[in-house]
């Protein structure tokens, strides 16, 4: 879609929202909604039972891949342990009891930081989930993979794991075979499950339907205790439409439910794309619940599906945690009408904005050529969502928008880490769970930047 077309659609979009808002008014909730932690009732967290182990898991799970960092003494970023402790203490206090981490999160620092904070509480008061993240060929031998597993136990300061996942299955069955079957690590983990050191064994999934179907066929032999999928109201019907490599969440959820496998949800917010929404989308949501955040809709959406064990949220700051606690203490499930409003009306409005579906998961990083890939996408998406993309040099606001885009670009991404330095080595491609064609997008963004810089027609 070119810019002109995009702007036209934007115009139509706003008109559509106008109507929706008027119609939506009558459904507006009148109840007072609290915004601070003190307003959250304790002991009200909605719990879901895992029929495999009997665990009573909080519907809100803590995703430990976006922990806060701070500048260390040597000038480098390091984990902000003090804040992490505070977040985990608060989460436990209000009933969050599921913590999901991985050996590779936060540049490999997440397990340790999470372990330090959790070990200050009784072990039976929380569930730990971590993963077999043997992506690098160097870690794919049986010994290296077992070492990774043992190291997870050590870092998390525990002698058993509640939930263990084969990390990111879905690229191809060959990849699965190589990482988990040929080296015997799956057999090993199943033995560990038998021995009680792994209480639930499952996998996380990003990718193609054929792989998912094959994994489901393995259920009879392996018995997956749970499966983690990407699910939210945009991916429910549109994942495949946004990228043909991906499967609609509705399909994944239904297949799992059919087999009675509990579902853990990741990316309920699509890395913030469902919380930082465009104004017209926000208007649609606020028309229904003027005092609740856009994010709260996405979380309640996930919680409204009964087979969902927990929805993970990477809450970096206390306000994220507080907002989510409001959504889940207790959960007020969406009505069917509200659910379809999100799946259809709101999702379609979001799709009008040609943002790049980056969730800032950082799997592509570090780029060997120094680019800040998620940073570049974040700036680009922000400008699209806020309508800050000049569509033509004739645009009356062209000069203003041009400056805002370019200055903002330099501000959010250092010059040597910008899109024009992408050499298209394509090493990032295999890491991206969203299957974004990163080099291609970098090229397009740089072309747009060049046109702005040179004042050429867009």
């Amino acid at each position, binding site marked *: 879609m070119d810019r002109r077309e995009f702007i036209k659609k934007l115009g139509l979009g706003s008109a559509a929202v106008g109507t929706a808002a008027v119609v939506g008014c009558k459904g507006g909730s009148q109840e007072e909604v609290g915004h601070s932690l003190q307003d959250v009732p304790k002991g009200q967290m909605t719990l879901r039972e895992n029929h495999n182990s009997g665990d009573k898991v909080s519907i809100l799970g803590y995703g430990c*891949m976006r922990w806060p960092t701070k500048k260390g003494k040597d*000038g*480098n*970023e*390091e984990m902000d342990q003090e804040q992490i402790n505070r977040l985990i203490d608060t989460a436990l206090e209000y009933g969050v009891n599921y913590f999901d981490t991985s*050996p*590779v*999160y*936060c*540049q*490999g*620092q997440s397990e340790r930081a999470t372990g330090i904070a959790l070990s200050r509480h009784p072990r039976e008061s929380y569930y730990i989930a971590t993963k077999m*993240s*043997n*992506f*690098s060929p*160097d*870690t794919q031998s049986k010994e*290296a993979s077992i*070492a*990774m597993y043992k*190291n997870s136990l050590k870092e998390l300061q525990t002698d058993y794991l509640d939930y263990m996942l084969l990390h990111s299955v879905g690229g191809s069955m060959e990849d699965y075979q190589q990482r988990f079957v040929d080296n015997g690590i799956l057999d090993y983990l199943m033995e560990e499950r038998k021995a009680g050191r792994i209480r639930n064994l499952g996998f996380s999934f990003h990718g193609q339907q054929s792989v998912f179907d094959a994994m489901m066929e393995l259920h009879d032999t392996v018995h997956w205790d749970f499966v983690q999928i990407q699910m939210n109201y945009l991916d429910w019907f549109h994942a495949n439409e946004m990228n043909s490599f991906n499967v609609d969440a509705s399909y994944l959820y239904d297949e799992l439910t059919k087999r009675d496998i509990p579902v853990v949800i990741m990316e309920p917010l699509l890395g913030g794309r469902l919380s930082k929404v465009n104004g017209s989308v926000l208007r649609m949501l606020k028309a229904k619940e003027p005092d609740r955040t856009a994010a709260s809709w996405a979380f309640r959406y996930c919680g409204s599906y009964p087979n969902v064990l927990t929805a993970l949220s990477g809450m970096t700051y206390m306000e994220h945690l507080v907002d989510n606690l409001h959504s889940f203490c207790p959960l007020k499930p969406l009505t069917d009408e509200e659910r379809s409003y999100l799946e259809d009306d709101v999702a379609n409005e979001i799709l009008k904005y040609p943002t790049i579906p980056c969730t800032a*998961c*950082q*799997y592509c*990083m*570090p*780029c*060997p*050529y*120094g680019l*800040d890939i998620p940073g570049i996408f974040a700036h680009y998406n922000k400008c699209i969502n806020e309508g800050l993309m000049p569509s033509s040099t004739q645009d009356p606001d062209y000069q203003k928008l041009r*400056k*805002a885009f370019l*200055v*903002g670009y*330099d*501000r959010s991404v250092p*010059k*040597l*880490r910008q899109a*024009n*330095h*992408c*050499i*298209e*080595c*394509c*090493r990032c491609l295999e*890491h991206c769970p969203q299957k974004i064609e990163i080099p291609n997008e970098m*090229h397009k963004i740089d072309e747009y930047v060049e046109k702005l*810089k*040179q*004042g050429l027609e867009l």
Partner: protein
Amino acid sequence: MKKVRIILATVFLIGITWLFLDFTGTAHTWLGWMAKLQFLPAVLALNVGVIIGLVTITLVLGRLYCSVICPLGILQDVFAWFGKKAKKNRYTYSKAKNWLRYGMLALFVALMVLGLAGVATLIAPYSAFGRIAESLLQPLWMWGNNVLAMLAERADSYAFYSVDVWMKSLPVLVIAVVTVVVLFVLAWRGGRTYCNTICPVGTVLGFVSRFSLLKIRVDEQKCIKCGLCTKNCKASCIDYKNMKVDYSRCVDCFDCIGKCKKGALSYGVNSVNRATKPNDANGVDESRRELLTTTAVALGAVALEAQAKKVDGGLAVIEDKQVPKRGTKVVPPGALSIKNLEDHCTGCQLCVSKCPNDVLRPSTDLMHLMQPEMSFERGYCRPECTACGDVCPTGAIRPISKEEKTAIKIGHAVLVRKNCVAVTTDDGCGLCATKCPAGAIMMTTVEYEGKSVYAPVVDEEKCIGCGTCEHLCPARPFAAIYVEGHEVHGEV
């Protein structure tokens, strides 16, 4: 009259300083003429109109130029003003050191003719001021701006944006510091010592101003030889005992007129008698301090990992690029040729301070010290920019249009295949070929050390030497493709 002088001088000093400090490119539109009015740049640019104008002004009014237009002269007045605060009636009359003045002028002209402009401009007033403003004031200005930008960022405003502050050349910084210190000492102690003994422009204008129509006149009948005028003459040019003024050194500051309690001094056409006196005042600017700075680029480093696992997140460390050795230096489009640049450039640093892409920096080559040259570690000569030619007051870099620029060959790209990422890795790099704005680089299969490699080759005919490839090349610390300059700039 003194007030008028101070107001005009203030306007000029602020204007020219602003011209050097501004990095947004807006100042030049409004203030560019102030640089073009400078004497030496006008001579080098053969700007006949300005030269005739300045000489005429001097013939009519005397060396007003030195008090009102020359930024270095005004800067010295500022220094001297502080000196005067410390001690009043501080100056004495001294004889003109003509041998030194004319000797310096002769040396200056000889150096210019011999093509050693870099050395000659060490003593040229406008260039000296430029160096001070560019290497000492601009960093302060930019840091101040960056603080504002930081605040603006918090408020999500785009009114200010952050800029890189980096030391473009250590020698120039040292020279600027030395110049400031020397001038400060001279001005503090002796007022306009530099202007009347060293400055070649001062000497030339001094020669002219002997014959000026309007002069400081001494009414011998009113004069009581109190010597107050002499004690306040920053040019040390009033001989009160003989009631004479050395008009070649008087810079028309008019301080003496106000100082004389008997009203014996006036500025006019007719000879009343003679004598003049000094003192100065000025109301601008801040004092300077030395500052040595290197831009330390803080880069987030990746945490060390015991296991060889691939972890998520973090930024790769980017090694700084180093300046490659070039057989021939690269000078900006508009310079016409290296010779033209060297002949006309006074090393004032205006272009260096204006280059928005951090390409221009002063040469450290002794023969051409402080004249601009190009390198591409921090950016490249972008197609939409013609800033250096627009601001140059001497004609060393001529103004060109964006369209003309695309056809001017300032150099051509040369490959260092052993560093090339397309050769040394399997990453399939072809960035230089993709980004070349002239379409002068293509990827093809070539033999290299007995192997067939798919690597870039340069079409030297199409290449204009803009440095895009050198800047973007991922090979570090030395780019695998760099620009060799051309002595004479041709056309594509």
